[in-house]
């Protein structure tokens, strides 16, 4: 139920000049930015990302209308000139665009793939001191264009990071996205994807590994407007200590989006008595000739698998690590080269299991 009156702004909100998302808002019920944002410094900073682009890519600054989301409006208030990165038609390169330096403040980036272009974007989201980051990204994928997006995230335990991406995909467009997150004090990666054209292909996978009091929220909202879309989504979570993992996924299949083939999975492994998992895998379907499914599991490692491995002589801790690693690896099976991710994952597991 909605509160009858809007409560007074918090100190952070006064600095920002408006209300932050809070748990009374259905979409933010498990990621309460209002309650968690304690920082007062750096809330109005403007972030200058480091961007390296291969030859042939054009980088400019333009005035773009703000996103209609709460966080999008904040980003637009502080950042009037959006960074615009665009490709020519049928562009191809074996070099990715690299974006880093997203460590503090507000930022807006728009990436446009022209018809038939193929582009990789590698993003690193890191902070080594307590920071506040509000990143608003947009990707326009034109007809027949293909985007490969790789996201790595590891923040300071007191950092608050909200990273939102709006992705528009036209006919025959494709996106493959892989994200590995080690969390932040409070963080949310929100992907709002609209498949506007026919035959859109979406692979959007991720894993989060969280310890201490970290929190990550992987939220995605995928709108399918036209026929024949294929969506695969798989998110794996490993949480320990007092960490909290949140997954919210939604497929919205519009009336015209016949022959949609969509699958969503979220599986979380809980390793401590004090960690928490929240999940909401949603389907909203208005077309009848579709095959849509979602699955969700939450729990500890499978004891019988553990016993089976130990019966073959593998020590318990090693068996646990092997099973956990295999569990997480499923999110990155479709990645062209997942060695860097897998190394980071095994290092993380080694230190904690």
């Amino acid at each position, binding site marked *: 139920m909605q509160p009858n009156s809007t409560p007074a702004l918090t100190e952070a909100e006064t600095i920002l000049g408006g209300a932050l998302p809070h748990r009374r808002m259905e979409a933010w019920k498990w990621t309460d930015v209002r309650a968690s944002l304690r920082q007062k410094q750096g809330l109005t900073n403007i972030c200058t990302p480091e961007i390296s682009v291969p030859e042939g890519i054009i980088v400019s600054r333009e005035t773009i209308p703000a996103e209609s989301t709460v966080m999008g409006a904040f980003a637009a208030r502080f950042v009037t000139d959006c960074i615009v990165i665009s490709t020519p038609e049928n562009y191809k390169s074996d070099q990715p665009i690299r974006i880093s330096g997203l460590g503090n403040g507000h930022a807006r980036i728009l990436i446009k793939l022209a018809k038939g272009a193929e582009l990789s974007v590698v993003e690193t989201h890191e902070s080594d001191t307590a920071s506040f980051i509000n990143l608003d990204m947009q990707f326009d994928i034109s007809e027949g264009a293909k985007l490969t997006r790789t996201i790595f995230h590891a923040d300071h335990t007191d950092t608050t990071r909200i990273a939102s991406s709006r992705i528009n995909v036209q006919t025959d467009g494709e996106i493959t996205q892989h994200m590995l997150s080690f969390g932040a004090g409070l963080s949310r990666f929100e992907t709002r994807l609209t498949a506007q054209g026919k035959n859109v292909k979406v692979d959007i996978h991720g894993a989060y590994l969280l310890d201490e009091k970290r929190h990550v929220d992987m939220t995605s909202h995928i709108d399918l407007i036209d026929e024949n879309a294929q969506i695969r989504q798989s998110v794996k979570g490993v949480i320990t200590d007092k960490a909290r993992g949140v997954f919210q996924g939604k497929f919205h299949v519009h009336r015209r989006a016949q022959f949609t083939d969509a699958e969503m999975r979220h599986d979380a492994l809980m390793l401590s008595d004090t960690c928490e998992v929240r999940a909401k*895998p949603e389907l909203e379907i208005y077309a009848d000739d579709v095959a849509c499914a979602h699955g969700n599991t939450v729990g500890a490692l499978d004891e019988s698998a553990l016993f089976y491995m130990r019966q073959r002589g593998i020590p318990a801790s090693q068996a646990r690590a092997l099973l956990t690693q295999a569990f997480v690896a499923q999110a990155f099976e479709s990645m062209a080269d997942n060695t860097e991710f897998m190394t980071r994952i095994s290092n993380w597991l080694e230190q904690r299991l």
Partner: protein
Amino acid sequence: MAEIKTIAKDAIVTETVKGVEALEADKYKYGFESDIEQEFAPKGLNEDIVRFISAKKDEPDWMLEWRLDAYARWLTMKEPTWAMVDYPEIDYQDSYYYAAPKSDKDGPKSLDEVDPDLLEVYAKLGIPLREQEVLAGVQGAPRVAVDAVFDSVSVVTTFKEELAKVGVIFCPLSEAVKNHPELVRKYLGTVVPPTDNFFATLNTAVFSEGSFVYIPPGVRCPMELSTYFRMNAQGTGQFERTLIIADKGSYVSYLEGCTAPMRDENQLHAAVVELIVLEDAEIKYSTVQNWWPGDAEGKGGVYNFVTKRADCRGKNSKVSWTQVETGSAITWKYPSCILRGDGSSGEFYSIAITNGFQQADTGTKMIHLGKNTRSRIISKGISAGKSNQTYRGLVSAHKKATGARNFTQCDSLLIGDQCGAHTVPYIESNTPSAQFEHEATTSKLSEEQLFYCRQRGLSEEDAVALLVNGFCRDVLQNLPMEFAVEAQKLVAISLEGSVG
């Protein structure tokens, strides 16, 4: 057991096919209106109406105060808006909150005192009201004790004496308030508190009837208990309240059936059901909800806003909700289980069918608080016509709910491209030893299967009914036999006109 089930299933298939044929003519079989003299409270809602209802029921002061508190609270509350249902604003002043058949003024002492027209209504509904009729039936015929609620009052409760012999109390709630105040005071409102939600609070203020069941320790209730609800009077809301207590080691199976006449206005139904299950006890609660869904243009129909909740208080207690939801214009209903006792278990089996302009937002909540608690959710949703349907569910584990288990299977079927099927599960776990598993699928009826059936000579409608019944089998198997047959028929009737 297995053998009986097979036979029943075969019978059910035949019944389904027959049901479809028989219903060509009268679409909503329960839609006749009964011409019975009614007594109404004045239209609208205010403190005086609450007092009026309480006075009509001859209630003690504590009950009146309880109602008034709820009413005051309700005035400060807002109607929930999170469900995926869309309806014009309800004018709560435009409804009657109390309607009783006139002859009930002093309460019927026996069946003979009941208005014969009323009995005829129940006969039409197929309720075995007269004990002798039931007893005269074939040997081994199911014996069901019935509490029939007609608009705001309970008309008659059968088999009371036989039940009393084993200590089972089964009577209208208003009677329980008088005769068993200690039980009512101890349990009423302890599962669904007066402040629970907008509709439950409204119910607390104005509820006029309902059933009360108490099963004493160690007693296995010798027959199924049943309540039939019917809204008859025009412009009336129905606000019944059911309270069932299964004391230690007892068992009861309870059936609830609902119908309402066809009307082109919307009728409001805001019921509350509270189940309390103590150590080693079990309650099986089955519902066939067939309120008037509105006409082909989406006019009229019942707004069904219901709060049903079970509290598994004792160790190893068990609750099973089974529902077949085919009626109502709007359904807002989440029968839930609070799994408090260690080793307690909750089940939710649901079939929801929406057609025409119906909208249903229904599901369950399984709240795991105790150790080694189990829950199981099987939900089958079928959307046809221009209807929309949402499964909404919560499964949560408290830190202390070690060893908790949940399995959820949610399947939706779309028939036609003008309807919608949605799934909104919430999963919250706070302990690693809880194991939660959720699977959901959405699909359409298989063309191949349809063709296969038609190649064997079934009409398209029969084939659809047959396949949909197959899709729902996991749930239908959990219904008591008599209900299973009725439910199968309803599946076919509800889908009529959805193909071709």
